[in-house]
């Protein structure tokens, strides 16, 4: 076990840090949450800067046009971006971290040539059409249908929880091409042009009040058969392949941000005479441990290509920890937690250098999705128990 980085890794870090220090001050002002066009421009603009500097697709293999970095370099990359408060991946999320890697692994040469470079350059934005209202945890129950008609599929149905649909050029879409009984054996993976006729986008308001997500409705949308990635009815496997790209770095940004938040909560608590020091210290020890676990998972990925059992363990622990940090924040600011708008005055307010009530409310409210999205904690526990511990299926 070793916490030191190689000279090459240190150099990568130094160069990246220097580039960030030079580049970030040149970025335009952040657009408002509701300004979708502005957000697209901002996020893809930063992606273009990364591309020009050679930092696009750090985690993509070189044959896909990426940098082909090692897992440890990927860790250094996300760590440095977070510590420098660089923009999040934002609207580039699905393209860079999901659809792109899938096409790298499973696309035809034509598909790779057509779709990958614009993702890396920040020219194309992708969204995801996987979940459906009746296919949440049970994704394989999806019903959106694609029926062959000559060289096209005709797609009907709906999707939910689609981020950035308003500004997306393409959608990675899971559709049913076999009968419903075939479950995960009758699913195909399509590239859908978001400009195709018959797509309706309805913003979905969440409990956080925001409309980060949308519902998609498809009325006879034509998708060329040539846009299918993988074989017909083999889309489930294609989807799973993407998971194998994960190197244990998925939550690094949020984890480091949580540590920074806890630090500022500790300062707020100090200003109040530290009545919550036990609770803060406990959460701090847990965050430190999950940072260690992250680095272990990355170490495992560096050796074997996959982060091992640590990924599921991390997700279970972190999603519940994040909720407890949210609750601590709300408890510390009392009545201040009743407002989404910034309030002024006490140690926790932004005006006094604290984290601000708005961020704390936001952290708390959004934490409730952490134990639901991407597999509820209940499903995660089943997975841990069955796949890692080998307990029999129920």
């Amino acid at each position, binding site marked *: 076990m070793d916490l030191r980085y190689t000279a090459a890794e240190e150099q990568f870090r130094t160069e990246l840090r220097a580039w960030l220090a030079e580049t970030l001050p040149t970025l335009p002002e952040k657009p408002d949450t509701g300004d979708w066009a502005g957000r697209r421009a901002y996020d893809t603009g930063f992606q273009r800067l990364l591309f020009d500097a050679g930092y696009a697709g750090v985690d993509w293999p070189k044959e896909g046009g990426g940098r082909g970095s090692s897992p440890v370099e990927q860790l250094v990359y996300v760590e440095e971006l977070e510590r420098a408060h660089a923009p999040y991946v934002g609207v580039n999320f699905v393209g860079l971290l999901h659809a792109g890697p899938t096409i790298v692994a499973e696309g035809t040469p034509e598909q790779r040539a057509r779709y990958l470079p614009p993702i890396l350059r920040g020219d194309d934005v992708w969204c995801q059409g996987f*979940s459906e*209202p*009746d296919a*949440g*945890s*049970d994704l394989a*129950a999806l019903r959106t249908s694609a029926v062959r008609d000559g060289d096209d599929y005709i797609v009907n149905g709906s999707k*939910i*929880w689609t981020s950035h649909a308003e500004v997306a050029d393409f959608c990675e879409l899971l559709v049913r091409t076999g009968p419903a009984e075939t479950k995960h054996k009758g699913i195909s993976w399509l590239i859908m042009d978001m400009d195709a006729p018959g797509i309706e986008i309805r913003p*979905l*308001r*969440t*409990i956080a*009040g925001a409309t980060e997500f949308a519902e998609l409705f498809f009325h006879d949308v034509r998708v060329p058969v040539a846009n299918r990635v993988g074989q017909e009815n083999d889309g489930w496997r294609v989807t799973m392949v993407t998971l194998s790209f994960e190197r244990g770095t998925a939550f690094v940004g949020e984890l480091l941000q949580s540590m920074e938040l806890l630090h500022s909560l500790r300062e707020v608590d100090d*200003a*109040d*005479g530290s*009545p919550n020091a036990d609770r803060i210290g406990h959460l701090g020890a847990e965050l430190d441990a999950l940072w260690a676990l992250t680095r272990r998972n990355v170490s495992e990925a560096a050796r074997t290509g996959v982060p091992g059992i640590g990924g599921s363990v991390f997700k279970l622990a972190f999603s519940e920890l994040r*909720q407890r940090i949210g609750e601590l924040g*709300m*408890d510390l600011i*009392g*009545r*201040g*937690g*009743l*407002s*989404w*708008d910034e*309030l*002024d*005055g*006490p*140690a926790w*307010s932004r005006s*006094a250098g604290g984290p601000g009530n708005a961020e704390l*409310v936001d952290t708390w409210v959004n934490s*409730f*999705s952490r*134990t*639901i*999205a991407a597999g*509820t*904690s*209940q499903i995660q*526990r*089943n997975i841990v128990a069955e796949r890692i511990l080998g307990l029999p299926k129920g």
Partner: protein
Amino acid sequence: MDLEHSLDQDALAGVVRAIVAGRFSMERIRRREGTPLVVDPDDWAALGEAGVFSLTVAEDEGGVGLGMADAAVVFEELGRGLVPGPLVASHLAAGLTDSPLFAGAADGTTVVGAVTRPRMSDTGARVPLIVEHLASLDAMIVVGHDGLLSVLSTDDLEAEPIAHPLDPLTPLSVLTSLPEGDPVGDRDTAIRFTQGTHILTGALCAGMAAATCSMAVDYAKERQQFGRPIGSFQAVKHLCADMLVRAEVARAAVDVAAVTADQPDTGDTVRAAAGAALLAAEAAIANAKTSIQVHGGMGFTWEVPVHLYLMRARVLASSLGPLGALARTVAARY
């Protein structure tokens, strides 16, 4: 000794339930989300007419002459229905018959709120003074640093509205100053006010905890995943069972605190009221959170109303001060 509802109490609960179903249906109250005037004067008067505010006022003072136990039954129903507005303060104001400002509190023609005068923080910074439903209020009870009560009219108060309150059915304003007001009642009045706040806020919370449990159970019976209702999975079952336990324990705590307030020789009302407020507030928060989890992605949508219970629970809990202080009150008297 009987800790079940009497027939009269069942009837009272039924009356309130009917008003809630009629005037405070979820569809109807949600139309006022995010507006500054969530309290509708007609609806408020209807609550007044049903005795919601005058229930514990003596008959010779024009009230119904019942006790806190009956009020707890009523407030549990109001909580279950997520009825918005300064219910607790208006009920307690109706009992402060010394103050001319509160003449109409009992019949619901005067809407009364309450606020605790904030202390300066250690750094000298002013803690924002947040008032609920200010635009609907006629008068306000102020709990002072000395614990004593004063009253003031809301006519001349200066305040900044908060554009995005956590609970869209509890509009908030930040007062820029808070006048002294007129003293009302003595130390005993103030103690009863605190107890009443604990018990009735607890009752609202206990009702809310029961409601979010029911919502989760209903959803779990209906929602299909993996070819079965999700309520057939042990993981979901156990979440629901834990919700029921929290709701029932909270309701027992609230009810016994209310009866103790009516029959003070049977126990320690201060301890019972503080403990009830503590457990009920925690149950309301935990059950709303668990109900969201059982609802899965749907629980995270604005459309499904379970999140409104979570936000209201935070509003009510924050009105009790730090929950740790309630626990320490219980400890000191154990």
